């Protein structure tokens, strides 16, 4: 994964709350066996409306999306994160995120920035005309108008993003600990393995 440090540019002031992952990418786009090209289906239902914000030339290629509460709720489809990435979105700012979506976003190097509603409202206003900057190291969002908002982030995720770490590689390095656990589990609950043993 590419390291993530700073994200700066225009921000799409979408603002809608409870944006579900069906809205981000409808199921018919999930027939693919690839991670690529899903931007074409992103927000399809919204884009069907003339004058929608996603097709507004001011926000073409904008790296930031600003939305309402509970962004990414619903389906666990990682295609939602892939679709946003394919659109060029590298960070989403919202008052809150669904747990599964924020994990999926993180694994694709998309930063989820949770800020209080009043800060989000201010950024929605600024984004109409001006760019927004996000700095991961200092965990802050700034605007050309001296606004500065701090956001929380899990320290493990922050470290992974800053260093562009591969989570699977990290866990594979803990192989000995996993093996120890497996032996303990087999002794304590032998039925867990017996029931599912595959015939040779």
């Amino acid at each position, binding site marked *: 994964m590419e390291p993530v440090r700073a994200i700066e540019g225009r921000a799409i002031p979408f603002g809608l709350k409870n944006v579900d992952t*069906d809205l981000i990418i409808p199921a018919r786009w*999930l*027939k693919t066996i690839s991670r690529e090209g899903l931007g074409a289906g992103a927000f399809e239902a919204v884009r069907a409306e003339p004058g929608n914000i996603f097709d507004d030339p001011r926000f073409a290629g904008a790296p930031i999306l600003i939305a309402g509460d509970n962004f990414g709720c*619903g389906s*666990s489809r990682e295609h939602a994160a892939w679709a946003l990435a394919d659109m060029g979105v590298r960070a989403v700012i919202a008052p809150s995120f669904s747990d599964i979506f924020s994990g999926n976003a993180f694994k694709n190097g998309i930063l989820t920035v949770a800020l209080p509603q009043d800060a989000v409202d201010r950024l929605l206003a600024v984004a109409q005309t001006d760019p927004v900057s996000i700095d991961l190291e200092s965990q802050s969002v700034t605007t050309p108008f001296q606004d500065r908002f701090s956001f929380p982030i899990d320290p493990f995720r922050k470290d992974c993003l800053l260093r562009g770490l591969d989570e699977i590689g990290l866990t594979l390095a*803990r192989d000995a600990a*996993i093996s120890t656990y497996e032996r303990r589990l087999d002794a304590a609950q032998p*039925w867990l393995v017996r029931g*599912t043993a595959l015939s040779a």
Partner: protein
Amino acid sequence: MASKPRTLYEKIWDAHVVERREDGTCLIFVDRHLVHEVTSPQAFEGLRMAGRPVRRPELTLATPDHNLPTTARIDAAGQRLPIADGQSAQQLSALEQNVAEFGIRYFNATARQQGIVHVVGPEQGFSLPGTTIVCGDSHTAAHGGMGALAFGIGTSEVEHVLATQTLLLQPSRTMEIRVDGELGPGVTSKDLILHIIGVIGTAGGTGHVIEYRGEVFERMSVESRLTVCNMSIEGGARSGLVAPDETTFAYLKGRPFAPQGAEWDAAVAYWRTLHTDPGATFDKSVVIDAGTVEPTVTWGTSPEDTAPITGFVPAPESFADPSKQDAARKSLAYMGLEPGQKLAGLPVENVFIGSCTNSRIEDLRAAAAVLKGRHRAANVKWAIVVPGSGLVKEQAEAEGLDRIFTDAGLEWREPGCSACLGMNPDKVPAGERCASTSNRNFVGRQGPGSRTHLVSPAMAAAAAVTGRLVDVRELV
């Protein structure tokens, strides 16, 4: 020294910690992993690219469900029929190649055991109390009805589980939803969970694991518990669970992957320790009186937009939160509804009975009880019943339920996710209403422009025979 009282969630979590990092992130062991065709191809491809094997193939079970058509799969000569949609066929064949290459147990598209992963897991005894269960599908929460810690994951996590049999996670906060008293006649587990989501909202459980407690859940069948836990994600909680008890053990005994013989007794002895200790505390607590719950329907485009069938479409101004007012206005425009309209009597053109929420035998019996001796209303153009698995289908046919459905003018289909998510050909046309036993009423979920009203199986059956949303208590 007496240990600190713990919740059920904390007991299962603690038992699965492989390692705790300094920053609080834990490496959690995964006991059971379910795989389907839609969220797995990129994970297997990732393994292939990195040259990584599957660490514990025997702990993963795969079956196709999301994308598979629900029309006939074999012809009269027993030959497998091709899938018309090229992309869907390619996705299915990718799964078949992946399970063969990585040595994973697979119930293929025509196997009796094939079905919706969340129906198959409990039915096979693959989902056991006290286990951690994951799947690349948010409705994995369903398996919490077995007393398991079960949650949906993304495809990168699917790859992580395949490679390491673990996940890196932060512990969740705990939430108790207590329902005491008794559900009234005609009020089901589906009505209760819709009512609960209406109370807590779609973000009410975010960051939390819900434990459903109280008399109502203690008396519930396992299948009803699965329905309740299934929709925990619609309340924002990645997992929901019910403590395992004698009902759970009786359900599991003798199932193919359940423990046997002396190990059964050892397992049950362990499972009996899986309950929240007296004195354990929850971060959040919600109490609901079962007697206040009525047959419940959704009116909007979020599962929190619920109302009793005896109620009315709300006015957007009735919500305190301005953003909710705005969302309600958009929902009503999309749904073609006016504030103050009575919910009972709304005409529906489509009926869907199925999905991981409501496609088990108990659900089909409830629908059949209403449909028996009645017929689909003239304005209902499309009504399908999709069993959750091949085994549910066999059981229903053995009981004659399929005849009740077809005699009533409903179609009896092959198992799969079907019209719940509008991925395979089973879709609701734009601008038309569907009384649906599924779990999501999002914009476009059942097809572009589709208008979904979430209901129980009995209420869906009532809609099929009257051609409108109706209080099922008037029909029984």
